């Protein structure tokens, strides 16, 4: 098995750290501290719900911003700055480079999300309630967020292989928003009497990843059980989509002229 993607991944992570990307953790910490203090004063009995909801939503939003804005530059920035020229002259295949870049950003997101999860746990601890068994659901929700971020990163990387950062951002955001409403779009198509529109909404439904399934924030905050089957289904779903996107990205990038 090829080990060439590993140093690329480590270097991508190192770049993120040195570019102070993880400074967003400071903002997250401030948000959690502020929320914990405020919630303790104004809410009675729902402090847990508010903190978990706010914390998980912030983890998701901060992660999405990182996945999209760093993801779209993963390849295009290297081409633009010409750092890729000397790297690809080394004995490394283009797909190995892509997989390394992808893994590096996912590693960054995992580290970032882990620290934010710790921050959320600290905020929950601060509002003065003991941890209960249902709090493990928070970890499941965080895992779903990570799956979602991995998928968004793969989409951003795919566009980054042939498009400008600006267009890649628009495409990735467009797919993400469409993916959140994928089920609604399909239902809308089913309700219309136009066969053409119905077919179109079906195509969109099957083509675009369904991000709605990765949202377990409400379940985690209300302590509702998350079926194990959903965990397995989401893992498989994200894994397959990521694999397909990486193969497509490699196919495009392998024939790209680096002018």
């Amino acid at each position: 098995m090829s080990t060439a993607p590993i140093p690329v991944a480590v270097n991508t992570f190192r770049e993120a750290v040195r570019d102070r990307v993880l400074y967003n953790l400071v903002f997250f910490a401030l948000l959690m501290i502020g929320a914990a203090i405020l919630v303790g004063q104004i809410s009675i009995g729902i402090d847990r719900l508010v903190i978990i909801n706010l914390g998980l939503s912030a983890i998701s939003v901060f992660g999405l911003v990182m996945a999209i804005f760093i993801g779209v530059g993963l390849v295009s920035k290297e081409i633009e700055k010409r750092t890729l020229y000397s790297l690809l002259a080394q004995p490394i295949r283009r797909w190995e480079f892509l997989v390394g870049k992808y893994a590096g950003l996912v590693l960054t997101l995992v580290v970032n999300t882990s620290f934010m999860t710790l921050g959320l746990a600290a905020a929950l601890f601060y509002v003065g309630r003991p941890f209960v068994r249902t709090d493990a659901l928070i970890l499941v929700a965080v895992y779903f967020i990570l799956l979602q971020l991995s998928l968004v990163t793969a989409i951003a990387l795919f566009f980054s292989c042939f498009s400008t950062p600006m267009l890649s951002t628009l495409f990735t955001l467009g797919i993400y928003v469409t993916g959140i409403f994928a089920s609604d779009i399909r239902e809308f198509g089913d309700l219309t009497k136009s066969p053409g529109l119905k077919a179109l909404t079906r195509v969109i439904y099957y083509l675009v990843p369904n991000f709605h399934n990765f949202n377990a924030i409400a379940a985690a905050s209300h302590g509702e059980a998350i079926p194990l089957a959903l965990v397995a289904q989401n893992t498989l779903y994200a894994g397959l989509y990521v694999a397909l996107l990486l193969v497509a990205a490699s196919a495009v990038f392998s024939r790209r002229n680096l002018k």
Partner: protein
Amino acid sequence: MSTPAIEILGLTKDYPVGFWLTRTRRSLDHLSLQVEEGEVFGFLGPNGAGKTTTLKLLTGLIFPTAGTARVRGRSIDDVAMHREIGYLPEQPYFYDYLTARELLDYYGHFGTFGKTARRERVTQLLERVGLASAADVQLRKYSKGMLQRAGIAQAILHDPKVVFLDEPMSGLDPVGRREVRDIILDLKKQGKTVFFSTHILSDAEMLCDRVAVLAGGKLQGVGAPGEIMSVEVHAMDILFELPPGATLPASLAGRVTPIGGRCRMEVPEADLYAALDQLRRCEARILSVSPVRPTLEDYFLRMVGKQQTASSGVEVAVR
């Protein structure tokens, strides 16, 4: 018969141009040449001649429209070929958040070194290119010359048999150019093949076993710098002083260029003795007589001039 270090066979590169990308611009036109093992080969041409295109094709950064090339018998499509080569891009730019040591260590992972061997090799190379004292400084703080040296270090990191250098002396001060020249000569001593593009002709004259001249994407000529220079009919250069009040005959006066209190005159070799006789009659003091050898630069300019006259450097075709 040994395998050539580099074998280029009809390499052609077209780029799509225009809003709809329906037309093509030919950057390289059926380039064929061969570079032998251990040669220092200069690739000369003005900006836009196709030098960088050729190097990018050979290093697999772009793909040929037609033709092929082999490096030490391996096709340029083969990733194993990259184990045989090192490449310094034109105006190299590296990850500026890394130090030179980190950059080389990063690239070192793609070779066959173990961890200890890699670290030793990196330290050794940093010393060799004169960056030992700045090894742990981030590349964003490097001068252009230092970046170029870091670039050369990464190009020879894996001890490649063939080294491609794209304008390695470009933008360097005289000291930097001399250092790069020394590195190229050192590589030659080790039996490496060095293929470098340049438009600084004195460097090519000084370093190269053979040179190729490229203009408008077409190969204009290949040969040893000495062979190219001996092709021309020689002229002679006469430097002399005239006594006060002396005048030159009309047949010579038109050829003379005054330089300070002296005069310089270039005459065809066949007319040398007649010209010297006339100067002697004017009581001129002959200071020197030297042959005018066409330089590589003359050859280069003539070739480029021919190319421009033919105006066939850029082909535009409708798909």
